């Protein structure tokens, strides 16, 4: 009776880590760029990049989940707002609503700026769509309700990032996932990768069109987020070391893996933290160090989720 089998699962593998990574980061990108636009500076380029790249990430991430559904027609049960009233205790039902509404809010929020942007208007298909009278009317309405759209994007963005962790927390047989720190870790990681992505955008594509103070602020916030993530990761290490056999086996898998140690902890957290510290408070200047550090943070964000999925050890009673 008390013999236990410890094993990993084969249902949600690396593809699910892509969903968690892109979904969390995309949502946080939208939330961060909206907050910046609403309360710091009206950076039109940044909010367009944030909204559209965030939507693109969530489309790809959600697409990974959609492709793996056995019965794709049943998706209508969860994309309709009724879904969350029917199943308010399911985090996937909430997450689906967040992802739907954040994408609508993001596109509408960016639309008034898109219809004014000559480069976009010159694009073959996109330009023609943006010049359509109905689109111009929608853009006008969207401009009038900008604060509402902004807050829809911020709330659903934070909600989506938290949801990616709450989802894993819902699985009681896995010690690594079923604990209160998982949503916190995934939320911090989502916002850290969002900062990293927006820093890359601001240092490469729109360097001269964004005020330097925004970049400097993002660098400092990202420093805090990476530090918080390091603390949470090491508290996980301490938590899994004792208390349950499944947790201990997860710890053995993670901390015995070079990919986790070097790919995530060292080059996904510690090295970018040191590089950003040197950029913010030290002598490093120029674009290369911060872009490199941000790329490492993005890689670390994906590694975290991929290893978390792989190291979820189930304890079955036979």
């Amino acid at each position, binding site marked *: 009776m008390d013999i236990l089998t410890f094993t990993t699962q084969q*249902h949600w593998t690396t593809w699910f880590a892509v969903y968690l990574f892109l979904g969390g980061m995309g949502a946080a990108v939208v939330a961060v760029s909206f907050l910046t636009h609403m309360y710091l500076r009206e950076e039109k380029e940044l909010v367009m990049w944030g909204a559209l790249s965030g939507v693109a990430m969530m489309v790809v991430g959600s697409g990974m*989940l959609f492709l793996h559904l056995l019965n794709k027609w049943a998706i209508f049960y969860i994309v309709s707002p009724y879904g969350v009233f029917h*199943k308010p205790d399911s985090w996937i039902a909430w997450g689906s609503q967040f992802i739907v509404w954040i994408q609508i809010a993001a596109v509408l929020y960016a639309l008034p700026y898109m219809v004014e942007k000559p480069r976009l208007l010159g694009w073959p298909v996109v330009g023609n769509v943006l010049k359509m009278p109905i689109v111009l009317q929608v853009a006008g309405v969207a401009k009038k309700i900008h604060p509402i759209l902004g807050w829809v994007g911020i709330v659903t963005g934070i909600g989506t990032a938290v949801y990616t962790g709450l989802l894993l927390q819902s*699985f009681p047989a896995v010690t690594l996932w079923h604990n209160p720190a998982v949503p916190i870790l995934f939320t911090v990681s989502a916002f850290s990768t969002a900062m990293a992505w927006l820093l890359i955008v601001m240092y490469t594509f729109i360097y001269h069109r964004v005020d330097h103070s925004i970049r400097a602020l993002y660098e400092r916030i990202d420093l805090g987020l990476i530090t918080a993530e390091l603390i949470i990761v090491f508290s996980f290490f301490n938590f899994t070391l004792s208390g349950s056999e499944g947790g201990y086996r997860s710890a053995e898998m993670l901390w015995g893996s070079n990919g986790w140690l070097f790919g995530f902890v060292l080059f996904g957290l510690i090295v970018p933290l040191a590089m950003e510290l040197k950029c913010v408070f030290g002598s490093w200047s120029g674009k290369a160090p911060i872009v490199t550090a941000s790329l490492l943070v993005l890689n670390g964000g994906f590694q975290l989720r991929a290893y978390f999925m792989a190291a979820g050890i189930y304890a079955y009673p036979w």
Partner: protein
Amino acid sequence: MTHYAMVIDLATCVGCNACMAACSLENQTPVWADHWRTKVHDREVGDGHGITRRFIPRLCNHCDNPPCMTVCPSGATYKTKEGVVLVEVERCLGCGACAMACPYDARYPATSDDIDTGKEYYGKLQRKSPSMDKCSFCYHRLLKEGEPACVQTCVGYARMFGDLDQPNDPVTQLVRSGKARPLMAHLGTRPNVYYIPER
């Protein structure tokens, strides 16, 4: 009220797998993919001349607090008033969250390919669309006052089925006496499949 539960006596399970055969025919499960609604696991215990085989049949535990039902985003997984956890096939997305949430490994995917294969294997197939699948305690048989196919076919009478709301039901008495115990009770799932350990 009715509160269905099953008791499995591990001392009398001989590992004949008749329950697996009966269940697969009754419920047309995708056995070609090694997916069963009930499966008898076996394990060698001891060593040398003292080595023996032990069997533990497992199935959905029809928990009173089922994590698979909580995570289900569409409400496809639901509980009947008798405590049986069922899946509404047409409503199930097949996202797999229930399989991830189940601490008893009782969920598996029944895919479109399985439907095609099932038509050849079983002839007329009840299933029309893919979904996550699981044991239903043969609910269609319970409605006709029958019992699950695995219980009816068990040659060693290792499986017993009853109503926990009936004090004189042998299953109720085994559970109340503490002889039959649930698996992984510490997870708070309140399972309704109980096991009598080997003596």
